[in-house]
């Protein structure tokens, strides 16, 4: 029994918070301000608690499994959740159904946690659904906006479609191997055509979730229509969780099919980087821009994935950790500006530095990091991803990735130029930032600078992975 509690601690903590929120809601509720503070404290405790009393092992007949690496990954996501609760304070305070919103978000996170710990395809499928459906409901949270509902409908339809394909793949795989367990699967995989078809179906479900081209179409509409909080949750937390699961599934369960998935990943990665960059290049709306640039970032994660080594796993965890800091900071700034002034266009950002130096610096830092410019952490993240990818010796692939990195520089720097250099007679007025968001922005900026320079962060991740 004791084992049950220690092994499932991350999930149990999230569930505890969920029920607490539910009881508060049922009893008499709290004012948004108070409730939000309460949630922030809970999430912080949740993050800190993630470092203690961890164990490795399996539960429920290997349906559920956990180890040090999975715990670390869950902690990184917990940290991201905490940042979200800080950075979007203003939006949350105005939110009419705050506790419901957090319940949905935490349910989705719970689904992700189970997904990361799943030891069986059935378990995986169930948790995937748990991670998806609440997000569709969250997308609908701008209740007075039609695009928000559209986003939710599109998300649920596309997910349902993808789930259908996934289930088809799972059943084919069961037919071909006679098992759904991750531990028994590898021995039974022989690259027969049936298995390959089944694997492709499974693979696309991951690709869909990570918005890998050509399974990314839903991303554009959903990201644009949803509230910024949901967009950032989707593009950071959700994507991170899927990437973690994807890596371990490919590296462990589908290792016998390595020759096949290596080429698949290479093709899709190149397409994703190129199309993602082309998308981002033309965006005028800053939210859309950030959303699309995150598609291109996925292409780089795939480069690391192609390495098929522990170094690749470590570099992906490291990259996503950095990505959480950089992307959330950028989304945080964009949300602040759009929340207070309604301005969302790149042109509106001209001359931002004159009125809001703090926001400008944070934005610049995060964009530098996303673009991978030294000495920000993003540079080291991409460096490790590419050098992990380079271990396979496919230098053309790495070369294409590097070229794409340079292309992406253009559109990231375009915004920085607008903020710092372009003159504007009516710049965004001075925004008074509430202390919670300010703390969040400071932590993110510090993270962006320090994670890269402190070499022990990567060393620690690598030691955990090994």
């Amino acid at each position, binding site marked *: 029994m004791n084992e049950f509690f220690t092994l499932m601690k991350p999930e149990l903590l999230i569930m505890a918070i969920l029920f607490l929120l539910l009881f508060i809601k049922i009893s008499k509720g709290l004012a948004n301000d108070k409730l939000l503070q309460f949630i922030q404290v809970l999430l912080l405790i949740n993050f800190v608690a993630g470092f203690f009393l961890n164990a490795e092992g399996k539960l429920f007949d290997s349906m559920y499994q956990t180890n040090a690496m999975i715990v670390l990954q869950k902690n990184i996501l917990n940290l991201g959740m905490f940042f979200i609760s800080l950075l979007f304070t203003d939006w949350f305070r105005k939110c009419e159904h705050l506790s419901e919103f957090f319940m949905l978000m935490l349910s989705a996170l719970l689904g992700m946690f189970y997904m990361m710990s799943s030891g069986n395809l059935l378990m995986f499928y169930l948790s995937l659904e748990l991670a998806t459906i609440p997000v569709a409901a969250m997308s609908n949270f701008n209740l007075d906006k039609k695009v928000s509902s559209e986003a939710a409908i599109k998300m649920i*339809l596309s997910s349902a479609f993808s789930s259908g394909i996934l289930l088809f793949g799972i059943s084919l795989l069961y037919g071909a191997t006679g098992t759904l367990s991750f531990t028994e699967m590898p021995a039974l995989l022989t690259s027969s055509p049936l298995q390959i078809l089944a694997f492709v179906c499974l693979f696309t479900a991951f690709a869909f979730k990570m918005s890998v081209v050509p399974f990314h*179409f*839903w991303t554009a509409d959903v990201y644009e229509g949803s509230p910024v909080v949901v967009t950032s949750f989707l593009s950071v937390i959700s994507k991170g969780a899927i990437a973690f699961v994807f890596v371990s599934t490919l590296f462990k369960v589908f290792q016998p099919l390595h020759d096949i998935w290596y080429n698949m990943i290479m093709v899709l990665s190149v397409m994703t980087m190129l199309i993602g960059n082309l998308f981002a290049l033309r965006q005028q709306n800053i939210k859309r821009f950030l959303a699309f640039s995150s598609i291109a970032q996925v292409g780089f994660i795939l480069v690391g994935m192609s390495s098929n080594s522990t170094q690749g796993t470590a570099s992906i965890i490291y990259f996503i950790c950095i990505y959480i800091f950089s992307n959330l900071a950028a989304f945080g700034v964009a949300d602040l500006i759009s929340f207070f002034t309604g301005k969302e266009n790149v042109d509106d950002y001209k001359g931002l530095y004159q009125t809001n130096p703090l926001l400008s610096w944070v934005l610049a830092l995060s964009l530098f990091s996303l673009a991978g410019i030294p000495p920000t952490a993003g540079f080291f993240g991409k460096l490790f991803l590419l050098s992990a990818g380079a271990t396979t010796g496919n230098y053309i692939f790495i070369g294409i990735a590097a070229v794409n990195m340079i292309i992406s520089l253009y559109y990231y720097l375009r915004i920085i130029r607008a903020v710092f250099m372009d003159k504007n007679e009516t710049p965004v007025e001075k925004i008074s930032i509430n202390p919670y968001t300010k703390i969040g922005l400071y932590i993110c900026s510090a993270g962006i600078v320090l994670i890269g320079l402190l*070499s022990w962060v990567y060393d620690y991740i690598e030691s955990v992975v090994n």
Partner: protein
Amino acid sequence: MPNATYIMLIVLLPLLSFLIMGLFGRTYLKNTAGIISTCLSFISTCLAFYTAYGYFFEYGKINGVYQKLIPFNYLWLAFSEGLSINMGILLDPITAMMLVVVTLISLMVHIYSLGYLKGEERFPTYYAFLGLFTFSMLGLVVASNIFQIYIFWELVGVSSFLLIGYYYEKPSAVAACKKAFIVTRFADLGFLIGILVLSFYAGTLDFNTLIQRLTSPESNELKSALAASFLGISALTWGMILVFVGGAGKSAMFPLHIWLPDAMEGPTPVSALIHAATMVVAGVFLVARLFPIFAISAPDALEIVAYVGAISALFAAIIACTQTDIKRVLAFSTMSQIGFMMFALGVSKYGGEEGLGYTASMFHLFTHALFKALLFLGAGAVIHFVHSNNMKDMGGLRKQLPITHFTFLIACLAISGVPPFAGFFSKEEILLAAFQHNQTIYWMALITSGLTAFYMFRLYFSIFWNKSYHPNHQDEHGHHGEGGFVMMMPLVLLSVGACLAGFIPFGKFVSSDGTALVSEFHLQFSIAPVALGLTGIFTALFLYKTENDKPDKMASSLRALYQIAYHKFYIDEIYLFITQKILFNCIGKPAAWFDKNVVDGLVNATGNTTQVLSEKIKKIQSGKVQEYAVYFLVGVFGLAMVFIYMWK
């Protein structure tokens, strides 16, 4: 063992000063900026003295040999098993000496600037920059790793850039800081390539390992570095030459010296700190740091060091005789003296008595820092008084500026090598080393030291004697004397140093292999240099003591030579010709054409294609979920087809 925390503090306190002044200086510390910085600098200086004392007298010496200690080492970036970048502290005799020199001169300049820049609008910014510079310079001298030295090397360059351009309203200052930055950057490129070459062959960036691997004859690294050759010169020699190019750039050696005279546009105390005592000797320090490799494995590169040093020394001394801007005279004199240090290293061998040049070079570095800083600070006091840099506006100032006059005279005697002042001892050792190993260089050095005495006393007499001083109209009201206690105290302290530093038995502490070197004093050997020096002094006395037309007559009778020297041998013009006429026309213009038509064309074409593609993609992104599902399905089956039938 040394206390690593103290050494870290020596380096980090100036950084703290930079951070405080940079972040809060302009808003909160307008009046106290100088005092706070000076206090931090003082603590740092005390710790540096304490460390040097401890090293030289307590724990540094084991079995009669000074050890290379590494009290602190932090693994910063690990590239591979063998190759990593560390941030560390390497404590050996030259580091200990440099710690003292840098912190001491920096402290003097901190104090002096309290008076010199009083009432400046950007006072805290100035101290912030000073802090940054001192931090980078100290980081450079304690570096345990060649990459660490490179990082701080560049930081030193940046802070020098900032300080030269301190008066950014003056176009000449802006031009000067740009010039300094570009020229040294150009040299640093060589340094970087040199580092890459060395680390490639040695497989390490750490100084101790690097030196050990590249000097022991049976090591494989040394064999492969010597075996690989390019244009008939071994890779190791190339590497060392490239590293020296970096050092020559920073130390203003011929022909990379052109930035130094212009750098005098910065505030005068800055010139004293950076362009006389500390940064410009970084090149000498670098050669000294890698000296075993130079001496044992790459003697050809060391030969180059020797000749570049000797040529720079003579060349700069000739120019210095004709300049009229007092700071420029001092700048060329600095270049000349650094040339002395360089060729002293160049003629030295590794170990024992043969290593006299090494000791002499470091000794001269030490004494020169004292008397040259003194000269610059004295010049600063004069400029502060006269509001002009030009010798022609001065004369007869000995009555108005008695303390400055006296200290300046001591410094002039020291640099001219008159016994018993500091410069005499170190220069004597250098000449002796040159005499023992390379006669050509010895004669060049001898002539140079005669010229040194001449131009220094030309400067001295023109400022303090010659005609009597008649202040200009506007200056009469704002008369402020010598600049008060804060400006005079550093002068007096430094002049004490310039008198006494020569009596330090330097060979006991600093030598090429760490063992004590007893330098013998040869009386008959000193006769020639001292006599030449005195001749120089008396010539200057004869020509410049009183106002007369002898100098002009001499200049016109040697018209051609004088003009050439006055225009600094037209080196600047040659650079301009090469860059503007040859590079711009033959490379720049074709490159511009290529860039405009081919590269831009390609970029535009890419841009257009991207636009078209984006339009196409936009059409695919129709917003209809059913279409998305179709694409999804096409994707699934496409992948399945490809991987089942084609790519297996």
